[in-house]
């Protein structure tokens, strides 16, 4: 029952939780792949949120490769535990798609194969999502390749903007403009709200709130990821913005306990002006017939930020068909696979292809396609307990600060708890 529960709860949240890393994995320059074409069979694990495209993708691969792959779908809620246990007992799959934020953890625990040589030999290695590449490396060794991507941006309701006397083609680009727009939309009537966010969802806010911090020039972890920086002034500014919107009455009370399930329904009801989300929400929004626009999440005085989410794909330690596993992992980053993924809900991980295979699908897609290249991801082996845990320090800080009001105390507590998690490994 627990799994089922988690599964349902994860539907929206899991999509929003995808995370990645940025930076670069450097390496040698040996030629990858084919002395002889690999053969045999391989097993691949993926999460239920990828069910829609994964089996089709594998069919595409099987059609013109000697290696034959088979997918097993694992519930997202228990994926980390399952892969962890299987890998440590040697009964894991040959290949697995892994939520980017968990890559450092799995790499640090020895569950992933070193694929540095193959990764460095890819002709397009520098065009791969920088954040994915950063998270795929652990202590200068590459353990994964980018697979699918996701970016975060702000959705806004053009009709409400017009009604409130705002220019629907000029969405807010600073904190002050967001607050002002939210206030004006709120003034449309007691049912209307300017802004909403998932106030009880850690994963949602690492995806949707940290971009404010990054765009303001700050961060939530130090460069070496050994120090939490939840008490930095850029975090204060972003919390202050949300706090101000809350005291203005621009945020609905539903945001207080929203674990990620209400944001989209609230926005598609047509009564909420702005909300930060990922590309995954585009189809839902289009179906709901809301006249919406997508704009980058701004920093305090402008600039733009995005979370780089998605999956990386790895060869799992103990595989019996390493050549076949590597072949699939490599193919997954090639144009054939990426084009297929682009048409099935994923932002491509190839910055060199994004224009051609993704942005062409519409203006909203183009925004996300561009943001994928600048996206960041917190890199930490304890990313899950700090950020994604819905009872962890990150979301508690945001909730306490925005709805409680004592921002300084909330930040101090969050900083202390997060640092304790980092220090405790």
């Amino acid at each position, binding site marked *: *029952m627990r799994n089922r529960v988690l599964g349902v709860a994860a539907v929206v949240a899991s999509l929003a939780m995808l995370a990645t890393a940025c930076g670069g994995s450097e390496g040698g320059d040996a030629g990858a792949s084919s002395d002889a074409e690999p053969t045999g069979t391989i097993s691949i694990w993926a999460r239920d949120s990828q069910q829609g495209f994964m089996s089709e993708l594998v069919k595409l691969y099987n059609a013109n490769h000697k290696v034959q792959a088979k997918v097993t779908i694992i519930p997202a809620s228990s994926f*980390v535990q399952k892969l962890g246990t299987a890998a440590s007992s040697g009964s894991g799959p040959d290949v697995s798609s892994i939520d980017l934020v968990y890559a450092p953890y*799995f790499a640090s625990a020895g569950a992933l194969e070193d694929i540095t040589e193959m990764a460095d030999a890819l002709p397009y290695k520098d065009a791969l999502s920088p954040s994915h590449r950063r998270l795929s490396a652990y202590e200068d060794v590459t353990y994964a390749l980018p697979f699918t991507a996701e970016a975060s941006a702000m959705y806004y309701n053009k009709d409400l903007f017009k009604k409130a006397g705002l220019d629907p083609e000029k969405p807010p680009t600073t904190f002050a403009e967001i607050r002002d727009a939210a206030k004006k939309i709120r003034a449309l009537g007691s049912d209307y709200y300017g802004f909403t966010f998932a106030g009880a969802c850690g994963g949602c806010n690492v995806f949707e709130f940290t971009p404010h911090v990054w765009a303001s020039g700050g961060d939530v972890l130090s460069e070496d990821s050994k120090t939490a920086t939840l008490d930095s002034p850029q975090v204060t500014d972003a919390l202050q913005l949300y706090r101000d919107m809350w005291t203005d009455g621009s945020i*609905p009370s539903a945001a207080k*306990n929203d674990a990620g399930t209400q944001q989209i329904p609230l926005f598609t009801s047509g009564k909420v002006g702005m909300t930060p989300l990922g590309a995954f929400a585009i189809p839902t929004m289009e179906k709901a017939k809301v006249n919406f626009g997508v704009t980058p999440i701004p920093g305090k005085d402008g600039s733009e930020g995005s979370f780089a989410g998605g999956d990386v794909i790895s060869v799992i330690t103990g595989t019996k068909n390493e050549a076949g596993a590597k072949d699939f992992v490599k193919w997954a980053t090639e144009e054939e696979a990426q084009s297929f993924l682009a048409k099935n809900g994923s932002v491509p991980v190839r910055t060199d292809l994004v224009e051609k295979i993704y942005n062409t699908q519409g203006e909203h897609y183009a925004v996300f396609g561009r943001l994928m290249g600048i996206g960041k991801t917190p890199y930490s082996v304890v990313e899950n307990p700090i950020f994604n845990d819905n009872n962890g320090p990150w979301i*508690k800080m945001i909730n306490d600060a925005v709805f409680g009001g004592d921002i300084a105390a909330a930040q101090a507590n969050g900083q202390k708890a997060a640092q304790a*998690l980092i220090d405790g490994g």
Partner: protein
Amino acid sequence: MASPAIILIGTFFLVPLIMTFWISLHNWPLLGKHRFIGLDNYQRALNDPAFGTALKFTLLYTLVITPILFVLGLGLAMLVRRKVRAAGVFQSIFFMPVCIGFAAGSFLWLYLGQSQIGPLFDLLRRAGIVDRDSNIFAGMWTALLMVIAMVTWKVVGLQMLLLLSGLQSIPDEVVEAARIDGAGRWQSFLHITLPLLRPTLALVLVFSVAGSLLAFDQFFIMTGGGPSNQTITAVYSIYRNSFISFKLGYGAALSVFLMAILAVVSAFQMLLLRNTDHH
């Protein structure tokens, strides 16, 4: 003859129990090497403020919900015990929610009570009990009340059924005799029905208290441990240590700890209800 039962108990209770205990003596991360650390995990558990808070909240929840369930269950059982057709219909109605899973029930009530969109919220707002801009799940006590309402709706039918079977095993003659001796309704309930119901009461209470001490799903879904982590139960805390922080050893130690508490509480209840026999 008993061997199938022993095999079942061995496979699904004893072996996992021993393994849990064994794991609890280790620093056992989900991935990577584990190492033996003796009783360190238990020592840590005793000084873990987060688990302490969770335990206290679990006890509070148990103390509040047990009498509610018991009184309502007994009340319903008294109402539907009569042997008329309508009684059977109401029995089924009261029992129906029991057939719904905890998770489904939790999601249902989460939706019902949700600000802005929930029908129950709307009713309460029209009745002037809650404010248009308020959020039931954003206050610890209101959130707890919602959970209690859901759990009551969900399990009171089962308690009713158990108590009903207890009531029906009381011979009519005994009650009749008391009536003839001039006992009033209340007197015969207090001095005849309740004492004769004792074995059933013990069963119902032990079940109910154990279930409440092990509460997880309802809070995980309905409150997510919020607001501000104030509604995290003991099992929720074990779940977080094991599967969010990936500390299986520590999670196992907390489980053993909780099991000991549960055993003590259950034994105490059994003892209490048995002892009254001698008075």
